[in-house]
């Protein structure tokens, strides 16, 4: 439950694998199949998936994954890197014309959310960029589309230019520019009617508006729930209009949103904004990294893995695993481990990144007290080298000395010793079951730093 999507799939695959540590080529093949399924379930276009998986496979067959102790995580890391790369950097910039007004055209299929997004964009331009936008009602086809934009304009107190439903959209757009100049409005957002990319007549109308207005931006508005057809739609709109960017809507839903990847892959146009709700201030910059996690269905676990990758060195991890297996884990190792985990950042932040951590039984009410960690550290550091290597030496006198040295009560020293023994027992059990499910920690077992 805690891990869904790709992480879960990979864990299951790894469990099935025969070898304990390393993976072979057949394993990589199976893992790539899981990556493929995860992406398909997220609605990434199958052609895009095919190319993508090929790339992943090539990298995975290299030493990175094959030699790793944590092949699943390595694969996820590679997938994430490639996904983020594909979706490009963060690009929420909007063009500014040399001579105002700057003209933005909103285009897309029926029901994608163009009108609402036009309102949101106008709101954002005024609020964040201190601009004076004009909304233009050029959808003369859908019943009451003009009323909708006018209501949005009224709610925002932003002017709306319209000429009713009898006028021609091309004329409306042209006149709107004149009006904006007169009124010294510096942005013009043209809300066009939704249309099918294969509707030649209506696509021709957009081409005409484009030719007349020479817009600075043409935003293709796409519903995040779009399936395999996203590539056809995006490719076709882009070929006919050469769009400058994409806005993804309805991302506040529970779709994985693989369309984002597909569109980016076929058009190479940046995804600039994401619609996050029906309210007119719910438009956000698009974050490729977050989208990558979302497509894979795994919260921010990727960031977590990345942090672990940066801070925990593989060699040490291997040694640690050996020790766990042979149960020769000592308080020195314990200190070491604490140092490494601490270097990853504030603990509750780390915990927050684990998807579903708040739903996990053992972790539900965990309060991470950084102060307590300092105390634990103090206790361990007050032990002699011998005591750290062999906690069996411990007796009442030694415990009193340690308590005094660390400035903590004896009861706390006792508690830590007990926890340590429990932990060792757990480790022995766990090292037997590679890739065990995170959610299945025994009740009452505390992580060493809690």
């Amino acid at each position, binding site marked *: 439950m805690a891990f869904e999507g790709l992480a879960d799939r990979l864990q299951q695959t790894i469990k099935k694998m025969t070898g304990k540590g390393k993976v072979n080529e057949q394993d990589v093949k199976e893992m790539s199949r899981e990556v493929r399924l995860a992406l398909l379930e997220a609605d990434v276009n199958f052609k895009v998936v095919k190319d993508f998986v090929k790339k992943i496979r090539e990298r995975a067959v290299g030493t990175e994954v094959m030699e790793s102790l944590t092949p699943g995580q390595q694969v996820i890391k590679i997938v994430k890197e490639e996904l983020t790369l594909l979706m490009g950097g963060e690009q929420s910039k909007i063009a500014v014309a040399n001579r105002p007004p700057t003209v933005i055209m909103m285009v897309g299929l029926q029901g994608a959310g163009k009108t609402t997004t036009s309102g949101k964009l106008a709101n954002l331009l005024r609020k964040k960029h201190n601009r004076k936008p004009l909304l233009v009602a050029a959808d003369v086809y859908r019943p009451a589309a003009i009323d*909708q934009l006018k209501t949005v304009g009224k709610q925002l107190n932003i002017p709306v230019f319209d000429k009713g439903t009898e006028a021609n959209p091309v004329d409306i757009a042209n006149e709107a520019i004149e009006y904006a100049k007169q009124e010294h409005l510096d942005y013009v957002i043209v809300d066009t009617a939704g249309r099918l990319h294969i509707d030649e007549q209506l696509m021709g109308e957009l081409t005409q508006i484009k030719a007349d207005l020479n817009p600075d931006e043409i935003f293709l508005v796409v519903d995040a729930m779009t399936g395999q057809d996203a590539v056809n739609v995006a490719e076709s709109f882009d070929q006919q209009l050469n769009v400058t960017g994409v806005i993804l809507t309805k991302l506040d839903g529970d*779709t994985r949103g693989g369309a984002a990847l597909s569109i980016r892959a076929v058009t190479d146009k940046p995804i600039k904004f994401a619609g996050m709700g029906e309210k007119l201030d719910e438009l956000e910059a698009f974050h490729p990294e977050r989208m990558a996690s979302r497509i894979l269905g795994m919260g921010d676990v990727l960031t977590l893995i990345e942090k672990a990758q940066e801070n925990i060195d593989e060699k040490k991890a291997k040694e640690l695993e050996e020790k766990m297996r042979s149960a020769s884990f000592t308080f020195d190792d314990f200190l070491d481990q604490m140092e490494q985990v601490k270097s990853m950042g504030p603990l509750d932040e780390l915990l927050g990144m684990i998807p579903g951590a708040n739903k996990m039984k053992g972790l539900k009410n965990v309060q991470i007290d950084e102060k307590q960690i300092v105390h634990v550290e103090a206790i361990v550091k007050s032990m002699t080298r011998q005591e750290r290597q062999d906690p069996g030496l411990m007796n009442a006198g030694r415990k009193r000395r340690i308590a005094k040295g660390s400035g903590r009560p004896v009861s706390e020293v006792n508690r830590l010793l007990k926890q340590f023994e429990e932990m060792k027992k757990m480790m022995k059990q766990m090292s037997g079951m590679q890739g065990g499910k995170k959610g299945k920690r025994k009740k009452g077992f505390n992580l060493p730093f809690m």
Partner: protein
Amino acid sequence: MSFFKKLKEKFTGSAETEEVSDKYKAGLSKTRSSFSAKLNDLVARYRKVDEDFFEDLEEVLISADVGVNTVMELVAELELEAKRQNIKDAIDLKELISEKLVEIYTDGDYTAEVPLNLNSAGLSVILFVGVNGVGKTTSIGKLAYQLKQEGKKVLLVAGDTFRAGAIEQLGVWGERIGVEVIKQSEGSDPAAVMYDGIQAARSRGADVLLCDTAGRLQNKVNLMNELSKVKRVIEREIPGAPHDVLLVLDATTGQNALVQAKTFSETTDVTGIVLTKLDGTAKGGIVLAIRKELNIPVKYVGLGEQMTDLEKFDPNAFVYGLFADMVTEQQMD
């Protein structure tokens, strides 16, 4: 008898059926040509059935947005069947593929058309639900037109009190078709509007009341609760109502449509689907998974923005349209 022959037989005979299937052939021409063309192409490319063949077959199905699980199961089944029957040539698999696909939808019953559940003695209430922008209001307009053509007295109720311009939008449809629209002002309680609608339908002696609702994403708990309240009001006022709860799905939607169907069903007991925007290039294959997993039938398909662009979903005709090329081919063999 071979599957294609059976299909062919069904569609020769009555003139009426021919006409219906022609409409489908035209409306779904993009769907048909690309699907059967892809399948034909696949079979031509791979003379021998192997692992890569099945992977490509997966892709043909997935490109139509058929649910990923459904596809995987189907292909696994086909692989087994191919082994069992010792089928080695791709061409021999073609018919089996088509048959299995149809089976998913019809469950073996090729006459499984599911009509509207109208109450013959008195008022029928139909509730429209779905996410934002799928075509609820438009479909209501189209259905109202159809029912009026059949001589029924139809009334509309503007239950989307949230989206800007939604009430006016339904109002325009009412004018176009010449049916009355019951409404309150923007921002009022949708359950109260429904109540008004029912009272008006009763006092005017209407046959059918079509209820519009605001689009909502299925993961918004508050909005889903609001929807079940709307439904409760209808249930309370008229025993047995709503007679149909139609979930409107956009054919362009991918895997999330299955989640939509699940969640809206839990909240409102969906009885049928209106699959819109099939005039585009999307295939809406997810309805196969919805039928398979939730057993919700498609009742109508939307094929455009005009009031005549709504067709009853006839699985026979749909299937015939989908495989028309192959059926004809079979005949020439």
